[in-house]
């Protein structure tokens, strides 16, 4: 009896383990939460050092981006991301890693067509669709939100 595509799909589904969703959710929540708590800690620390609120709002993401790029460069971030998943991916750390990782990998192809051309390979979709959604949201707010 020859196996057809539908039968095979059922066989593959049965043979393949599911992602451990509960574990993934929990780790993402804990690590993502810890990153956000760390960010809040930075916020309070910078405030205590006497920086104005407007400055602190820029300094916190800058610090997180710098630390992520550093952890990416030292090969630590991907090991954490392997376990934390969305926990490291969703906060600004994920974005910073998505920029730093292709930059590191393509540096031997030159600064223009290597690093420059590939820098936004992963982060590009976030920028493109993030800008698009922001524009739509802005328009809705402009016409309806200012009541």
């Amino acid at each position, binding site marked *: *009896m*020859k*196996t057809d*595509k539908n039968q*095979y*799909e059922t*066989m*593959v589904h049965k*043979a*393949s*383990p*599911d*992602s*451990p969703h509960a574990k*993934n959710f929990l780790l993402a929540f804990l690590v993502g939460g810890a990153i956000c708590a760390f960010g809040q800690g930075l916020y309070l620390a910078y405030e205590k050092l006497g920086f104005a609120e407007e400055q602190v709002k820029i300094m916190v993401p800058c610090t997180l981006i710098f630390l992520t790029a550093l952890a*990416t*460069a030292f*090969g630590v*971030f*991907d090991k*954490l*991301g*392997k*376990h*934390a*998943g969305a926990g*490291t*991916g969703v906060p600004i750390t*994920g974005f910073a*890693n*998505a920029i*730093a*990782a*292709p930059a*590191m*990998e*393509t540096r*031997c*192809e030159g600064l223009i067509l290597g690093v420059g051309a590939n820098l936004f*390979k*992963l982060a590009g979709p976030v920028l493109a669709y993030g800008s698009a959604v922001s524009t739509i949201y802005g328009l809705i707010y402009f016409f309806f939100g200012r009541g």
Partner: protein
Amino acid sequence: MAIRLGRGTAELASRPAILGQAAVGGQTEQEGPLGHVFAQVFAEAHLGEKCWEMAETRLQQASMSHALERAHCAPEGIDLHLGGDLLNQCSATSFALRELGIPLAGIYSACASFAQALAMGALALESGAFGKVSACASSHFCAAEKQFRFPLEFGGQAPPTAQRTATAAGAAILGTGVGPRISRVIFGKVTDLGVKNANEMGAAMAPAAWDTLKRFLQDTESKPGDFDMILTGDLGGIGSALLQELARTEAGLDIASVHQDCGLLLYDTEEQDAGVGGSGVGCSAAVLCGEIFPKLQSGELRRVLFLGTGALLSAVSPLQGESIPAVAHGVELTADS
């Protein structure tokens, strides 16, 4: 002269011998169950080069150098080189051959490339036109990740069906003399049962392995029990289970007792971060050159059917909605007696 058995198997009268072989690997491969079989291990993934692609070239050069030494042969004594890898334009192979000066026929059937190299090399020798042929294949974990998946340092999560591309290469020198024999070869048909997920390589390739196995058994009128081992290239845990199930449901054959998979031999999937097993053409090339050929040499194994399995997707084809075609080439290896 070779004779044709059934529709697709070639039986080689001269039974070309493997005169020397060597496997080289990376750190993770050394830490696996076959860590002791490598002629050389490279602890650092760059192998002293500035990029992953060049590192893979170095893997091929190292495996060839050890294999030539073990076969007591100089590059000038080799009439034809058959080699392949997973990089675009098979660049690891071409670049490795720059310095060797051996006539090259580059080949590509993804992770089935080493099986294809052995099969075509054996046929070239059988033709009588070539005296010695070398076969080599490689893969590099970092180079494959870069080309087919994400940058290495990207902090993503691998799905539970993913496999690990081996950082390894294997090279063998084929000719007339003493050594394990290649007695029969069969080329695979491109097979596709509709698997679209590039993280389900084992599932995509299992039907190709089954098709070649089924045709080989029919052509040679043999049964699984006639072999000490039916060795697939890189089906991993899931693909292996699916191959065994296909054999059971389609032909009522139980191959579980003789079936092994290079991807499951190379890594300890419980202890190592290797997903459901190894993959990459370097995986099967290294397992054959490091483990299987020596066991055929010593007589520990007498008859092995090696089915190299290759997923013939490109880096963009899954994004374009294509399912993954696969192929499996078969080589029957026998002890020298």
